[in-house]
């Protein structure tokens, strides 16, 4: 299909064209739509470019909420001082979208209305319970996203912008495709001004979804451990060349735990399934009171505590004796004092399939 290009000067003119040309499509930044058209994944008789409509390009702070026009780019949101101050959640999301070049032209309204199943904004908008203001009405985010590339926008209805209430806080994390930076998946977690927690997951393959079971679990106890036994059902996800549905759901659980851990001030702990934390070192192999911990940088640490019922002097004298040390160190065959306070020890260590003496 040959595509014509039109440039609207007003919302009314754009609506007129949408009604007149039933195969036409609105063009915002075009960062998702243009590749789709070029690869033959969609068709349009006319592209109606909205870039000249000034009213779609504003960011305004109202009495109770922040207004972001549909044609504001991701880069503008990321660096806008008022957004960074009032709604840092959205500035943080904007800064993570795609790459710098795409952020310069891609728009929030385009991303929301297009509803690519791996886009970041739908998750933030749904978690943050934004109001979507169109040429006809206001739609809450919960009623807006219907599924893969589907929204409740009517054929001749134009998204003008979004409103987000003051006091909405949140954070977003994604596991991104290394070239396109699309979310596979991404998790947005927001807290409403009155305290309710909302979680939205994008990049599963079917469009953005709320994870209500996790919201309920976190309402009772805001800790990563509230999510320990919670599965994200696989029927929410799709498999493709990049990841299986199961893996996507697993990643979403991991990302959600990490978000909660960072917001709750907890050390992130690995999502342990039936496998052990490290090869050959199952949690049960550790002495009571110790637990394996994987930190953010993937180094393996062991920490814990044990209470000894003796005075510090007695314990200090004990740990200075080589026989006591030898008995304390699991796998220690021999220990000898080579100089005052310097010891040489031989230890047997098994790590997975490898066993060695050191």
């Amino acid at each position, binding site marked *: 299909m*040959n*595509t*014509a*290009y039109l*440039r609207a000067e007003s919302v009314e003119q754009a609506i007129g064209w949408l009604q007149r040309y039933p195969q036409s499509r609105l*063009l915002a930044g*075009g*960062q998702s739509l*243009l*590749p789709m*058209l*070029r690869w033959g994944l969609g068709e349009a008789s006319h*592209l109606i*470019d909205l*870039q000249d409509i000034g009213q779609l390009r504003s960011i305004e702070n109202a009495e109770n909420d922040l207004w972001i026009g549909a044609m504001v780019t991701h*880069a503008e949101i990321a*660096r806008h001082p008022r957004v960074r101050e009032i709604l840092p959640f959205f500035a943080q999301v904007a800064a993570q979208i*795609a*790459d*710098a*070049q*795409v952020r*310069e*032209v891609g728009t929030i309204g385009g991303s929301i209305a297009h509803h690519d199943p791996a886009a970041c904004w739908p998750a933030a908008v749904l978690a943050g319970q934004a109001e979507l203001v169109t040429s006809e009405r206001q739609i809450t985010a919960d009623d807006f996203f219907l599924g893969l590339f589907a929204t409740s926008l009517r054929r001749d209805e134009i998204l003008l912008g979004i409103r987000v209430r003051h006091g909405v806080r949140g954070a977003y994390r994604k596991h991104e495709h290394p*070239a*396109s*930076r699309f979310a596979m998946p991404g998790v947005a977690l927001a807290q409403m001004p009155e305290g309710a927690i909302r979680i939205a997951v994008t990049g599963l393959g079917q469009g953005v979804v709320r994870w209500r079971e996790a919201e309920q679990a976190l309402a009772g106890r805001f800790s990563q451990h509230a999510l320990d036994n919670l599965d994200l059902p696989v029927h929410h996800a799709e498999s493709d060349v990049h990841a299986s549905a199961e893996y996507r759901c697993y990643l979403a659980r991991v990302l959600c735990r990490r978000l909660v851990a960072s917001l709750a001030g907890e050390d992130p702990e690995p999502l342990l399934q039936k496998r052990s934390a490290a090869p050959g070192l199952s949690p049960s192999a550790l002495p009571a009171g110790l637990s394996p911990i994987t930190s953010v940088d993937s180094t393996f640490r062991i920490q814990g505590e044990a209470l000894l019922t003796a005075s510090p002097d007695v314990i200090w004298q004990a740990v200075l004796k080589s026989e006591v040390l030898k008995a304390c160190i699991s796998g220690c065959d021999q220990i000898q004092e080579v100089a005052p306070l310097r010891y040489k020890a031989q230890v047997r260590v098994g790590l997975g399939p490898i066993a060695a003496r050191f």
Partner: protein
Amino acid sequence: MANPVIRLIVNSKQVEIQADPMTSLLDVLREHCHLTGTHQGCDTVQCGACTVLIDGRAVKSCNRLALQCQGMQITTIEGIASQDGPLHPVQMAFSQHHALQCGFCTPGLIMRSIALIQDQAASDEESVRAALSGNLCRCTGYEGIVRAVCELLRSPKAATDQVLPDYS
């Protein structure tokens, strides 16, 4: 229906062509203006080899219709230094730090780096790497690239003030 007229200012020169409405800015630059320094890599908005400046902002030209840029200032790698004059400061830094191997990604990386230095948005190595994440180097020569950009960011402001071509 006749093809629409596309008017651009490419490297300070007026360009007027007629092309299919779906023609990308990249195709106009390469096929109509014969400015082949802007490379077509993946053609899927990922590799960044086609990065040019549109009104001073670094954008991937494979994913921008030329008509969306009607009347705008486009700067390509050919427009940042004169043919027989000295290299642009970013080109100099890339040369000094061995920031190019096969050279395919280089024009895109230089245009992106110019915008980055102009914005002064990045300051340390980590933020430079994040800011350049939209440009892929298949030779994996990132060490030199990042070193070159970091050095330019540290250099006196006077040097970076002249980084962008004069649009006046």
